[in-house]
């Protein structure tokens, strides 16, 4: 059977593929990628692998220390909280609230924000410069403060948090996508397609968009870590996901009262939150580095 590649043919990798190659060269990025994938896997499998139901109370094992402690029991690996609920099961079940819901909010915000940003980036003149200036200013107000105001209007509940976080993330997407479009629009290859008579829609989706995917991916990682931290912070303040739900921030808030008696109740949710945000931040950071390298390389 003849080999398919008899002739040497140089194929320019696509921007996204090039980025992947750069990322693969960085061991930290690879580790972060595996940790993040592992967390996602845990989240998807959490109903199956959690040893107990997150709300099941064991009256015989209240404030049980972790298994390696001399008072600990192996059936409660990371101990139990003050109501006798297994911490490991709660943290696993909580990943749906603390990782799944931010993922959902980021996706929705990205879809809306990218559409508006692309539209603004394609329009000319005063309209887009006003938008840019306004967004500059709106973005200097912290997302948590805006989310707090929206919660004050809607009241604390899971679906209201989702609305608040999504609304808060949209301007960030508009801003970065708009800026990216604005930069690309004046480049020669876009002018060439325009001279070829491509329609606006074609230029938008097939000419410019593939070249700004990297910016979008980076913005998504950034928005995701913001969303995770904001949802956890709102939960911690008691304004987010409400108490019996095993959300990591809410669990931490509860452990604040228990810190004298059961310090282990604050370790596990905190570590989970920290690992999630760290892996996303490392991914985002190495993406940024890879993008810089790619820009320098071309």
């Amino acid at each position, binding site marked *: 059977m003849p080999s398919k590649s008899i002739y040497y043919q140089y194929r320019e990798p696509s921007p996204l593929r090039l980025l992947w190659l750069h990322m693969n060269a960085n061991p930290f990025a690879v580790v972060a990628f595996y940790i993040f994938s592992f967390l996602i896997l845990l989240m998807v499998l959490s109903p199956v692998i959690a040893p107990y139901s997150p709300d099941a109370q064991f009256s015989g094992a209240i404030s049980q220390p972790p298994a390696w402690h001399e008072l600990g029991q192996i059936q409660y690996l990371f101990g139990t909280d003050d109501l006798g609920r297994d911490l490991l099961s709660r943290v696993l079940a909580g990943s749906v609230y603390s990782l799944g819901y931010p993922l959902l909010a980021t996706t929705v915000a990205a879809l809306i924000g990218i559409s508006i940003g692309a539209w603004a980036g394609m329009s000319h003149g005063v309209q887009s410069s006003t938008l840019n*200036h*306004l967004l500059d*200013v709106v973005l*200097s*107000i*912290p*997302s*948590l*403060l805006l989310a*707090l*105001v929206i*919660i*004050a*209007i809607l*009241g604390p509940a899971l679906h209201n948090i989702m609305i608040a976080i999504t609304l808060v993330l949209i301007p960030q997407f508009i801003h970065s996508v708009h800026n990216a479009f604005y930069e690309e629009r004046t480049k020669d290859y876009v002018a060439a397609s325009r001279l070829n008579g491509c329609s606006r829609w074609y230029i938008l989706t097939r000419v410019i968009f593939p070249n700004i995917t990297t910016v979008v991916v980076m913005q998504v990682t950034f928005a995701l*870590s913001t969303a995770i*931290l904001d949802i*956890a*912070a709102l939960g*911690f*303040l*008691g*304004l987010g996901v409400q108490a019996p739900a095993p959300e990591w*921030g809410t669990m*931490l*808030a509860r*452990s*604040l009262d228990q*810190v*004298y008696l059961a*310090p282990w109740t*604050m370790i596990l949710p*905190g570590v989970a*939150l*920290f690992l999630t*945000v*760290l892996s996303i*931040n*490392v991914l985002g*950071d190495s993406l940024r580095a890879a993008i810089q390298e790619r820009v320098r390389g071309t």
Partner: protein
Amino acid sequence: MIRYSLRRLILLVITLWLLSLLLFSLNYWYPGDPLTNMSGITANNTIAYQQAELARGFDHGLLSQYVHFLEHLIHGDWGISLVTEQPVFDEIKPLMGATLELGLLAMALALFLGIPLGVYAAIQQRGLLDRVIMGLSLSAYSIPVFWLAQLFILLFALKLNWSPISGQINPLYAINVQTGSVLVDILISDSPYKTAAFYNALHHLWVPVVVLAIMPLTMLIRIMRNSVLDVLQQNYIKAARARGLTDRHIMFRHTLPNALQPIVRQLGLQFSVLMTNIIITEVIFNWPGVGSWLVKSIYERDFPVIQAGLLVLASLILMVNVFVDVVHAWRYPQIRKEIDAE
């Protein structure tokens, strides 16, 4: 420069005006009666309610209501709290002092440590300490501030017993609250135990300040390191070296002033991050500042207070950002050229 400053100022005025529009409309979006949300006077108090109705133009249309709202806002008449029934404007002044004290001290600490550490990491590029500093700064940047605060309480207050768990000062010292900033209050008070009170206040203060400083600190280290590395590759540094200047001279006279430029640009953003963290930290440490007051008012659905807290925090952040922009453009003319050229 004047043109640029004017542009930023006009933008600031427009944004503050938009903020006032937002605050005004919030009164209608909140559940309940808009007039009560705005002034804090409930309909049970019939006479006062009717007076407020007249004073805030509620007998006319929305436009007149907005004009009166703005008038009240500028005169410092921000209504009364629904819970404590005290004027909101008088309540917020000492709270502001406490928040600013915490924020400024944390920012100062971050700048004081962040710049030297960043420079050090850059000089030792790819050395052991550079890796340690950069690794620590990336992980510290990912720690949620509320967990960090809990860990600090666990370590310093419970295990080591180095500091109290929460609060501003031991109430036994009976310091009168005037500015809200506890250190200033002690200095201007006539308490016979000034020094002891001062030490006690510092004892309470250092944990929240360190917790708050860590996030901006890690960011500043990273920015400073990258910026020093960038500057060291510029031609003017090579030229300075070719002229035979000492390393010390090159660092302090040529590298540092230029490397500080991204730091100045980032200060506004760092201040916004700091304010987010202050809201949470104040709640954890029971610090009597605007942040914990705002969060408490959301639990209590105290709308005049929510409004005032939002107004104060948002306008503070906006003003600091514009101020930083103007200072940045004033100190670094090359930025001005970029802005004017577009």
